[in-house]
């Protein structure tokens, strides 16, 4: 008779995930509108590591280190943040349709970004002199504000997750309506807003990476450590209370962490859909249903998925770029359908 084993994150899963991530990251750095040459880029990495002579011209080095590498790193951070938050939201709400934007983060960020573009029409140009662009800052605060509003409304309307989700629907609809109204008053800036809403990693550099890194790192650490608690919440509030847990407190901890990560991601990349909802499901179907495995693997899986999607966004119609949200939905949806079909026997 076999010994019962608990589901735990194994070194093998982490190693496979990290290996895939490295492959995608390297491919992503090597591919781009300007061909730097694979061999020369790899020699450049080696030179940087060992202090040798760089094979790249100054301009090429700038493309590599100031544009491409930070963009890839940012893609990984954003993808990881969205997927890890999505997994946490699905667990806390015990709802497979939950995604990081459920509690009004997207609507809040959208409204704040629209207002910023409206109030400071030249914000994109003005941003040159700032270490942080006004648009990311507005989007970050808007996302936090949206979730805060939902939380306050949910608290005043009663307790429980269903109330909170409904409050999120109300807040998101309202904020989106206001945003649409502001857009109508301000048609000449519609394209700037539209571009932002579709999401992308286009205008980025190390500033954005440094801006969101602390939020994504701390939130991800908290969420990965909370996997067991999210599993306990899976038995419902009454039973979780009977197990000595305070469900409302655990939920608050997880939601604050996930919302901070989401707000950070939204602030620098706009609204990238699909990552937060599909990546956790793919992991759930392929690996395990326990959140102690699901949460950390979603972090890695989200990073892989978005970095790969960004490669496609940059190269499919080069030199022009496709919005990354189009890529995530276009590739993610069929892949998800494939995983659903492939695992139907196990779910039956």
């Amino acid at each position: 008779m076999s010994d019962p084993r608990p589901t735990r994150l194994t070194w093998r899963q982490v190693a496979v995930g990290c290996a895939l991530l490295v492959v995608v990251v390297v491919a992503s750095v090597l591919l781009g509108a300007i061909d730097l040459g694979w061999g020369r880029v790899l020699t450049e990495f080696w030179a940087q590591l060992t202090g040798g002579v760089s094979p790249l011209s100054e301009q090429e080095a700038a493309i590599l280190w100031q544009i491409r590498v930070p963009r890839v790193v940012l893609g990984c951070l954003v993808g990881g943040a969205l997927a890890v938050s999505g997994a946490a939201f699905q667990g806390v709400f015990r709802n497979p349709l939950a995604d990081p934007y459920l509690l009004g983060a997207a609507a809040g960020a959208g409204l704040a970004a629209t207002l910023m573009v409206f109030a400071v029409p030249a914000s994109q140009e003005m941003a040159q002199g700032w270490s942080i662009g006004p648009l990311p800052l507005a989007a970050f605060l808007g996302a936090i504000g949206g979730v805060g509003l939902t939380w306050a409304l949910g608290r005043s309307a009663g307790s429980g997750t269903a109330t909170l989700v409904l409050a999120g629907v109300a807040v998101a609809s309202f904020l989106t309506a206001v945003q649409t109204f502001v857009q109508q008053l301000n048609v000449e800036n519609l394209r700037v807003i539209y571009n932002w809403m579709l999401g992308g990693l286009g205008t980025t550099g190390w500033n954005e990476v440094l801006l969101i890194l602390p939020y994504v790192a701390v939130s991800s650490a908290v969420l990965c450590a909370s996997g067991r608690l999210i599993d306990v919440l899976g038995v419902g509030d009454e039973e979780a209370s009977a197990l000595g847990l305070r469900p409302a407190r655990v939920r608050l901890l997880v939601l604050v962490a996930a919302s901070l990560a989401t707000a950070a991601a939204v602030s620098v990349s706009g609204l990238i859909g699909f990552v937060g909802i599909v990546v956790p499901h793919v992991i759930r179907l392929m690996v395990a249903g326990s959140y102690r495995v699901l949460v950390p693997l979603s972090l890695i899986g989200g990073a892989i998925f978005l970095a790969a999607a960004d490669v496609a966004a940059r190269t499919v119609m080069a030199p022009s770029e496709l919005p990354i949200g189009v890529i995530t939905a276009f590739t993610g949806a069929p892949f998800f359908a494939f995983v659903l079909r492939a695992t139907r026997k196990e779910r039956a």
Partner: protein
Amino acid sequence: MAELELRSVSAGYKDTMVVREVTARLPRGSWLAIIGPNGAGKSTLLKAITGITGHSGEILLDGAPISAMSARERARAVGYAPQTPVVPEGLTVTDYALLGRTPHLGLLAREGASDLVIVREVLARLDLDHLADRPLRTLSGGERQRAVLARVLAQQAGLLLLDEPTTGLDVGHAQALLELVDRLRRADGTTVVSTLHDLTLAAQYADELILVDNGDVVAVGPPAEVLTAERVATHYGAKVAILAAPDGTPVVTPVRDPSAVVP
């Protein structure tokens, strides 16, 4: 392991008390069954003892009031299986049973080897070890009920509260589950409080019955004293006969009234 005492306990939600003035004393290792018609307040009384529902009066566990315990302390002393457990379908039986160790762990701590040993023993006792790696969604109704019991037993609490543990089980599975609980309480000295709607099973397994109707305790005592045809008629609105099983315990069986049949 635990002696339970209820002193004029009333429990309910906000302004409405669903059960009122329950007084009972259970020695260690005894089994109390709370019986009564649907909506009488049986489940609410159990929830009050777990601390999920508020109460007035005193609930004492080994002489100490549970209202003075922290949620974690109480969860280490009282195990609770609800009537319709919420089953996280993606978890394996082992993962699910391990959730029972929650009150013994720090907030962000992981289970250690000793927790795993406890879970393995519990699964073996409940004959679940061959299903240990199976996701809960693949289990039958009876297996699920045992998995829920495994999670509760992993808490290692001295008091077990079981809300209709035989719901949805056929007579064989219901009997097997109750036999299991009975063996565990005799082996470990665990005190058991359960609600049961099958009065014959309640009479067979419980040492004492409390009959609750519309929130009030209407009878307390050994099964043979509490279960009379008049009481069942008054409080359940049912026409029954009380027979005797070969071992002498009362058997409550419905009796049809020919005059009530519509031609």
